[in-house]
C-alpha cells in the first residue's frame, strides 16, 4: 500500500477562514500598491538615463583624490557633530530611563507617560527634526547636533529603561535594610550595576549617529552631507565617489572600534 507522507498538517475550517482573510488582505495591499504607484517607465529607461548611467557609475568608481582634504575636513566635522549629539542624548536619556523603569519610579502613570514619550521621539526620522532645527536657527552644524541629540534620546531612553528594570534588586534592598539613604542606594546599589551597559549602548548609538550625521548636510545641517549636495548639483560624480569612499571607510573603522570597546566594557 502506497502512502504519501505529507508535511502539511490537516487544517480546520476556522484556520482556513483565517488564512483566506490574511491572503485577501495581502493581495488587496499589493493591488493598492502596484496600481497606485506612479513610476514613469518611459522616463526611467529613457535615452538620457542610459547616458547618465554610463557617465555616473564609472566616475563614482574613480574618486577624485584632489578633493580628499576638503572631504576629510567635513568628515571630521561630521564626527564632531555625532559625538556632541550622542553625548548630550546619553545624558538627557538618563532621567527618561529612570522615570520609565517600573522598579525605580513606583507610579504607573509616570512610567507609561515616559515610555510613550520615548516611543514618540523614535517615530520621527532625524532628518525631519533637522529640517525643523534648520528652519529655527539657520543652516549650521548646531541644527544637526540638536537633531542627533533629540533623536537619540528615544532609543537610548528605552534601552536604559530595560537595563534598569533588569538590575539585581537584592543589592538595593540590602542597602535599604542597612539604613542607606536614597543617594547612597543610588551610588552604591544602582549606578555600579548600570554603568557598563549604559556606556555600551551610548557607544553603539554613536555608531548609528555617525551614519546619520553624514547625511544631515543634505538639508543644510552641517557635516559631509553639505558637500554631497554641492557635488551632485555640479554633476561632479568623481567627487561624490570620493565622499562615498570616505564615508564607507570611516564608518567601517568606527564600527570596528566601537565593537572592540563594547566587548571590553560588558
Amino acid at each position, binding site marked *: 500500500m502506497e502512502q504519501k507522507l505529507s508535511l502539511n498538517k490537516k487544517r480546520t475550517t476556522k484556520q482556513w477562514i483565517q488564512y483566506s482573510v490574511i491572503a485577501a488582505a495581502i493581495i488587496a495591499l*499589493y493591488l493598492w500598491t502596484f496600481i497606485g504607484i506612479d*513610476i*514613469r517607465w518611459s522616463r526611467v529607461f529613457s535615452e538620457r538615463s542610459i547616458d547618465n548611467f554610463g557617465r555616473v557609475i564609472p566616475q563614482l568608481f574613480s574618486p577624485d583624490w584632489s578633493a580628499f582634504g576638503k572631504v576629510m575636513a567635513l568628515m571630521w566635522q561630521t564626527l564632531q557633530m555625532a559625538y556632541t549629539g550622542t*553625548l548630550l542624548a546619553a545624558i538627557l536619556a538618563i532621567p527618561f530611563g529612570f522615570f520609565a523603569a517600573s522598579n525605580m519610579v513606583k507610579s504607573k502613570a509616570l512610567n507609561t507617560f515616559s515610555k510613550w514619550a520615548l516611543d514618540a521621539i523614535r517615530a520621527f526620522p532625524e532628518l*525631519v527634526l533637522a529640517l525643523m532645527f534648520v528652519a529655527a536657527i539657520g543652516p549650521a552644524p548646531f541644527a544637526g*547636533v540638536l537633531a542627533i541629540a533629540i533623536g537619540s534620546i528615544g532609543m537610548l531612553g528605552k534601552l536604559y529603561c530595560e537595563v534598569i528594570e533588569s538590575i539585581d534588586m537584592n543589592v538595593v534592598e540590602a542597602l535599604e535594610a542597612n539604613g542607606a539613604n536614597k543617594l547612597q542606594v543610588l551610588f552604591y546599589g544602582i549606578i555600579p550595576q548600570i554603568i557598563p551597559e549604559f556606556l555600551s549602548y551610548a557607544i553603539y548609538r554613536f555608531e548609528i549617529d555617525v551614519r546619520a550625521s553624514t547625511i544631515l548636510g543634505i*538639508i543644510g545641517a552641517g557635516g559631509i552631507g553639505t558637500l*554631497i549636495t554641492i557635488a551632485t548639483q555640479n554633476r561632479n560624480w568623481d567627487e561624490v565617489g570620493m565622499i562615498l569612499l570616505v564615508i564607507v571607510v570611516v564608518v567601517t573603522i568606527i564600527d570596528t572600534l566601537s565593537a572592540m570597546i563594547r566587548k571590553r566594557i560588558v
Partner: protein
Amino acid sequence: MMNNSLKVELYSKKAKRQMSLILIAIIGIYIYTSIATESSLFDFIDGWSGFERVAKDLFPPNWSYAPQVWEYLAETIQMAIIATTFAAICSVPIFLLSAANLFPNKWIHQPVRFMMNVLRTIPDILLAVIFVGIFGVGVFPGIMALFIFSLGILAKLMYETIESIDLNPLEAIRASGGNTLQVIWYAVLPQVLPQFVSFGLYVFEVNVRASVVLGFVGAGGIGLLLQQQVSFFNYPRVMTIIIIIFIAVVIIDYISNKIRERLV
C-alpha cells in the same frame, strides 16, 4: 576596639584613577567638539528666539491642507512596500550564500558578506541622490535606494539566523542523499521562515521612516511636500504634514510589532 571602623572601598585606587581619566577625556572631547561645531550651551541660548518663533508658528496646524497630504503619504508607503518586497525576494540567494554552515568555502561566503557590509555603510539617502542623478526625479530612484539598503540589512540579519539554526535536520537530509537544494528547501527554510517574515516587517518599518525623507532629494514621497512647505515658511502646513507622518509611522509600527510578536 580602636580600629573597627575599617573603611572598605568599593573600587580600588587604580580603578578609580582610570575612571576619572576616562571621564575627564570624555568631557574634554565634548568641550572641544561643542566649540568646534558651535553647539555649546551658549549657542543654545543664542538660538532660543529662533526655536520660540518656529514653535509658535507651527500651531495651530492647518487641517484643510490634510487631503493634499494623503496622496503623498500613500506614495511613501507604496514605495516602502515595493522596495521591501523585492529586497526580501532578492535577499534569499544572498543570505544563503553568506551562511558559513551552508557554504563552508571561505571564498564563497566572505566576498558576499564583504559586499553587503559595504552596502550597509552607505546611507540610503545618499544612494537616492545618486539614483536621482541617473534616473531623474521621481519615485523610481527612491525605490531603488530603499531596495539596495534593505538588501544589506536583510542579508545580515538572515545569515546570522541561519548560522544559529539546528543542524541535525540538515545532516539527516544530507545523510539520506539529499543535495544542497533539498537541504535548503526541507531543512533550512522551514526553520528560518518565521524570522524571515519578522525581519521583512522590521525592514518595512525602517523603509517607511526612510522613505519619508527621500523626498528631500527628489526621490518621491511625502518629504517633497515637507521641504516645499518649510521653504515657503508655511509652518501650519508643515505641522499638518508632521502630525500625519507621526500618526502613520506609529500605526504601521504598532501593526508590524503585533504581527511580529505572534510570529516568533
